[in-house]
């Protein structure tokens, strides 16, 4: 069909008005269209005016925020060393995996979870928790990838596999294996929301790794260092185009503990498979030489983002592996309280050297018959034999003479019923009962019969292992009490307390404790040839309500205590041992013996090494010429 110009073929069809094919008819409409065009331009220009003239600064700042990023430079955490400078806790570099939510596909979650040995349901729940966060918040998936997990990620990362996987290099803590010193060292973890809101962690940011327990927590500020920052100009893919400024990270300081790894290992081995705690102190300085709590956990599990299931298993374990027994187990001290009783009695003058008691296997006080632990009785005992053989009847009489409030004041004087102030978190006070205490807590008056139980370390009296070591160490040190610490303070500290005990009285108590081991005492089997070890056993009954809770019959056994020190005068080491359900105190004594023996063995070894070399070696070692000048 060919187009025909209209004017060549005038339209004369009837019914139609005359028609001329020209553009003039539209002149008005074209003008209208031009005004419409003008309106469109004004509309557009207003849009540009609004952004470029009215809001220039706002958008300039946004453009700056887009391109200038502060990337953190993570400060390596300080190492933890023992007193000889041996590394206990180290760092190593590893990869952590995050799930980017910008390009997350729900169908990928299951294969990813299976490939990384994560519970798929747990991963889905995690993704669900993040649903209200902006999509550029990535989800931390797993830390410390194992080689096969790393291989899985390498194989499937990228646009054709699971583009949501991203690897980030980071540093991890390496703790000793098998939970060695786990409670002492603690562990690190990501700061929780609750911690972020508490004043203690006010200067921390979400995502920071902080110490969660033990030394890691108490000395977090020293260990953590200060993260640096790198200001960079980036493009839309976060590729760095230009480095604008660098603030280097300040690495965390290495922390030297007073712990002696040799003693710690000996104590750990001695406690293998048992429940309880060992605390070894140097009473002269307060240095903690070893601190063990068993059962333990593996801090390395925490370093690699412990799974919720694993954590709840640890929390729900009836033997409470996360519980630091050395600082937190508040238990009746049993007979280990007797040296404190003896000292109180001597100091107050309640008894003198001639004081003796006849033990026939028990005695009646205030209408109730109290048994001695030896059924046949000890016969006539004086202070020394009463301590050595742990005669209950003797101390019933002593307790009765002293009265509860005098006992309480001496117990408090040697540090019971209060925190020792050790530089570790979570320490407990224990309980020193007194008449005031009973009115305060139970709104009842004190009955004299209760004093009799307290006199042998039972009843309401509870102590922690660290308190016991501190108290006995302080007494053996002549009444000078040093605050226990795992890190030596920068300035030498004055003693917490100088009790001013009569040296003669202290000697009498120590003599009794020497007889426990070296005489015919309750721990005679733990004697160490050549070393004067003193100590006291304790066998503490569990409270009856505790018995009901424990179903396992082995758990009904008494708690075994031992607290010992050596040598008898100016002691260098004091060791408190708690073996839960260990049946009898003489079972705990060998553990303390092992630690004390290890201490003196090491001391002898070090002295031998420090001795001047034999003459031939001296000739070898002396530089030529040095000898001539001496002559």
């Amino acid at each position, binding site marked *: 069909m060919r187009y025909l110009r*209209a004017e060549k073929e005038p*339209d004369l069809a009837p019914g139609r008005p005359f028609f001329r094919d020209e553009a003039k008819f*539209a002149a008005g409409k*074209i003008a209208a269209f031009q005004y419409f*065009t003008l309106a469109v331009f004004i*509309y*557009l220009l207003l849009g540009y005016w609004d952004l470029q003239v009215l809001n220039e600064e706002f*958008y300039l700042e946004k453009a700056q925020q887009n391109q200038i990023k502060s990337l953190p430079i993570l400060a390596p955490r300080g190492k933890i060393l023992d007193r000889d400078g041996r590394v206990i806790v180290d760092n190593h570099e590893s990869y952590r995996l995050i799930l980017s939510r910008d390009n997350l596909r729900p169908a990928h979650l299951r294969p990813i979870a299976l490939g990384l040995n994560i519970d798929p349901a747990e991963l889905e729940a995690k993704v669900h928790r993040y649903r209200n966060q902006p999509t*550029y918040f990535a989800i931390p998936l797993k830390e410390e990838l194992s080689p096969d997990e790393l291989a899985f990620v390498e194989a499937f990362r990228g646009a054709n596999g699971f583009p949501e996987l991203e690897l980030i290099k980071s540093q991890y803590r390496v703790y000793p294996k098998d939970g060695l010193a786990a409670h002492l060292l603690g562990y690190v973890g990501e700061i929780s929301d609750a911690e972020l809101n508490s004043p203690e962690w006010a200067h921390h940011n979400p995502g920071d790794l902080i110490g969660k327990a033990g030394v890691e927590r108490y000395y977090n500020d020293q260990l953590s260092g200060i993260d640096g920052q790198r200001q960079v100009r980036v493009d839309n893919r976060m590729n760095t185009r230009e480095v604008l400024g660098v603030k280097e990270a300040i690495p965390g300081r290495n922390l030297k503990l007073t712990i002696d790894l040799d003693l710690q290992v000996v104590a750990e081995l001695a406690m293998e498979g048992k429940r309880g705690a060992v605390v070894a102190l140097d009473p002269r300085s307060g240095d903690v030489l070893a601190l063990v709590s068993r059962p333990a956990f593996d801090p390395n599990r925490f370093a690699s983002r412990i799974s919720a299931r694993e954590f709840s298993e640890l929390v729900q374990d009836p033997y409470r592996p996360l519980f630091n027994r050395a600082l937190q187990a508040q238990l009746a001290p049993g007979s280990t309280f007797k040296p404190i009783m003896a000292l109180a009695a001597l100091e107050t003058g309640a008894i003198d050297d001639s004081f003796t008691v006849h033990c026939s296997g028990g005695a009646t006080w205030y209408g109730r018959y109290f048994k001695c632990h030896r059924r046949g009785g000890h016969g006539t005992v004086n202070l020394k034999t009463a301590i050595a053989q742990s005669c209950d009847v003797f101390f019933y009489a002593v307790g009765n003479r002293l009265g509860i409030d005098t006992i309480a004041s001496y117990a408090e004087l040697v540090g019971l019923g209060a925190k020792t102030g050790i530089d570790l978190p979570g320490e407990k006070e224990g309980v020193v009962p007194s008449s005031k205490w009973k009115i305060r807590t139970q709104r009842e008056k004190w009955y004299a019969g209760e004093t009799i139980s307290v006199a042998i370390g039972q009843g309401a009296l509870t102590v922690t292992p660290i308190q016991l070591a501190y108290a006995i160490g302080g007494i053996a040190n002549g009444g000078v009490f040093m605050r226990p610490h795992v890190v030596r303070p920068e300035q030498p500290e004055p003693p917490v307390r100088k009790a001013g005990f009569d040296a003669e009285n202290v000697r009498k108590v120590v003599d009794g404790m020497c007889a426990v081991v070296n005489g015919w005492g309750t721990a005679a089997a733990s004697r160490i040839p050549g070393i004067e070890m003193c100590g006291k056993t304790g066998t503490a009954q569990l409270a009856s309500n505790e018995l009901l809770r424990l179903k396992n019959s082995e758990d009904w056994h008494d708690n075994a205590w031992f607290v010992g020190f050596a040598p008898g005068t100016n002691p260098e080491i004091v060791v408190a041992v708690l073996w839960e359900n260990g049946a009898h105190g003489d079972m705990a004594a060998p553990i303390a013996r092992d630690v004390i023996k290890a201490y003196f063995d090491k001391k002898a070894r070090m002295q031998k090494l420090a001795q001047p070399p034999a003459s031939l070696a001296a000739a070898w070692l002396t530089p030529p010429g040095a000898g001539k000048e001496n002559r």
Partner: protein
Amino acid sequence: MAVYRSVRNLDWTMILVALALAGLGILQIYSATIDTAWRSAWWKQVLFLCAGFVLMWIMARIDYHNMLGHVPALYAASLGLLMLTPLVGSLVWGSKRWIPLGFGFKFQPSEFVKLVIVLLVARYLAELRSDRLEGRDLLKLGLLVGIPCGLVAMQPDLGTSLTYVPVLLAGLFFGGIRWQHVLVIAAVAALLMPVGWFMLKDYQKARLETFLDPMRDPMGKGYQVIQSKIAVGAGGIWGRGVTRGSQTQLRFLPVAHTDFLISAFAEEHGFVGILVVFGLYFLLLMQIAQNAQAAPDRAGMFICMGVCSLLLFHLLVNAGMAVGRMPVTGIPLPLMSYGGSSMLSVFMMLGLVNNVRLRRFAA
């Protein structure tokens, strides 16, 4: 009678304005792609410009009445090409819009169909020989434009298919639509809106939602608009300078050399640069409208105003989306955005306008 059909009788004002805009576009393409994989785009654009210039001359030379005579064949060929595109087209960003030509060049039929639509509307309305449109004419013309429109929308390329609509609307306006019909069409459109919503693809819905509220998904769908607004705003009054716009150079601004070229330009040249560009565009459109006024017959007027309305629509949607005043659609900015098909088709349209101009005294 003198025949004013030599080169000097072309509308040189319009051509120079178009060249100035294309030149600014090439400068901006150069700046936006300076260290990207697209860094050769600017000289390709120069080649397209030269080719466009030749095509414009050819389009000006062939009497548009002859072209109008071939509209049925052109229309049939257009439909054929549009139906061919999904079969042989190359898939880019989820849609098949291009037919590969070899040597790395691609051909976008929907761009050239614009010319056919302009001619089709002009011929249909000129042949009516009436100043009033009847209902059946509306339906016929609507159907004729609607078929290619639908084919392009199915590629899917809703943006380009929408560019055919203003040609139709302008034609109806100048052709003498009755206000009763306008009311009926408006009512039907209002009724079809909810139905149309269900027919939109998810990404199209998302774009509309994002247009209404860009912050609802700042890192996802709203990203382009937010980054574009930041780019425009950061340009300020005087601009950040060529190759100095951080949004453009660090590639926060998406597709800065094609769809969002105006944002890149606004960032680097500021509001002053925008004023210059908009001034040039306004001059261009007014010059085309001027040629419509001087057209020798109705068909010529329809052709010019079809081109004029189409360019205005492009400008409104593209420049409007850069500042968040229009939804995001992949419509290029005529003359400035990188793209051969767009460049060639715009210059061919300008050729049509010149064609009408050259024949204004023929009677």
